[in-house]
């Protein structure tokens, strides 16, 4: 996110977001331990247009190959009122009863469920108090306007800062929190 709390520009711009090999390696470690990924429809479609075959390209980097493999294996949950899951491998669509559906998945054995990007889905999940932790990467930039990470907050949410919080050479700071009361 930007220093002023946006995850994308007003038209969804993400060209300002910094990532480099150091971050890929760091993020990749935690991601590889999870077996479930959660997306909103828009983010899912962006992922789906790139990652299934990104590792097969002749110019693919180590990160492309690793992440592509992870993406194809991970169980994907997509929040969408319009999509159908017929024919999708390893993918579940949640279109209603968001709280019950997510709580049911949380009860299942397994690692963390990581929600990637997906601001609209994030806003819905926040309002239902379904997010247990936030793993944020603060970019050294002020956008002035855009799509905020937090929206529609009715009650204060308190967090506990986790000690893994660190800074990267590219200027990004990791902030890692668990929800401590809401």
């Amino acid at each position, binding site marked *: 996110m930007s*220093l*002023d*709390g946006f995850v994308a520009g007003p038209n969804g711009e993400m060209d*300002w977001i910094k990532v480099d090999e150091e971050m890929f390696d760091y993020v990749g470690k935690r991601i590889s331990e999870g077996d479930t990924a959660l997306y909103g429809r828009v983010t899912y479609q962006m992922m789906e247009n790139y990652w299934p075959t990104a590792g097969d390209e002749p110019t693919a980097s180590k990160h492309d190959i690793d992440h592509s493999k992870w993406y194809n294996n991970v169980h994907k949950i997509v929040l969408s009122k319009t999509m159908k899951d017929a024919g999708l491998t390893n993918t579940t669509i949640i279109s209603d009863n968001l709280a019950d559906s997510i709580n049911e998945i949380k009860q299942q054995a397994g690692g963390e469920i990581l929600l990637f990007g997906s601001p609209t889905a994030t806003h819905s999940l926040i309002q239902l108090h379904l997010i247990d932790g*936030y793993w*944020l990467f*603060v970019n*050294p*930039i*002020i*956008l*002035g306007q855009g799509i*905020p*990470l*937090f929206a529609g*907050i*009715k*009650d*204060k*949410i*308190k*967090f*506990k*800062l986790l*000690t893994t*919080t660190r*800074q990267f050479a590219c*200027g*990004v*700071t990791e*902030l890692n*929190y668990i929800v*401590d009361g809401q």
Partner: protein
Amino acid sequence: MRKVIYAINTSLDGCCDHTKFYPSEDTMAYFTQLTQDAGTFLYGRKTYQLMVPYWPGVAKEDPSDEFARAFDAVGKIIVFSQSLDTPKGEKTTIVGTGLRDEILKLKQEQGKNILTGGVSIPSQLAALGLIDEYRFVVHPIVVGEGRRLFDGINLQENLRLKLVESTAFKSGAVALRYLKQ
């Protein structure tokens, strides 16, 4: 040349409203240090009225309050306002127009840092490229409503900064320090 430093407490959702959450002891100490290193405060009307006469009053009543003492020791307060006309006290100057020229002049003067806070004036200064250093103290809370960091900022293009350091406090707040690029 003196530096202009913008320091602000903010929630994780970018709320700067001082009634929505409270600084912890460790972040207060961080602001005390910044204030001790400052020779001039630069405020808009709202922040000025929030700070004065409150903090000079605390300094008088409770000399053991280190932040209040540091605040009271800063020799000059510049307030940018078109509605205020009478300064309270001899160290306060009210300036109605010419923000940019006034800052450029102040920066040329000898002395300690110029410290600014609040939302509106720092946003104008940031858009003009006049802030040399940023200190965001991010508290571990999301509050929802309230005045936002950089609310109403008018940027021609995204403003990129250079990360210098991040400091995590015991209270769970994190101080992020950036320089103008």
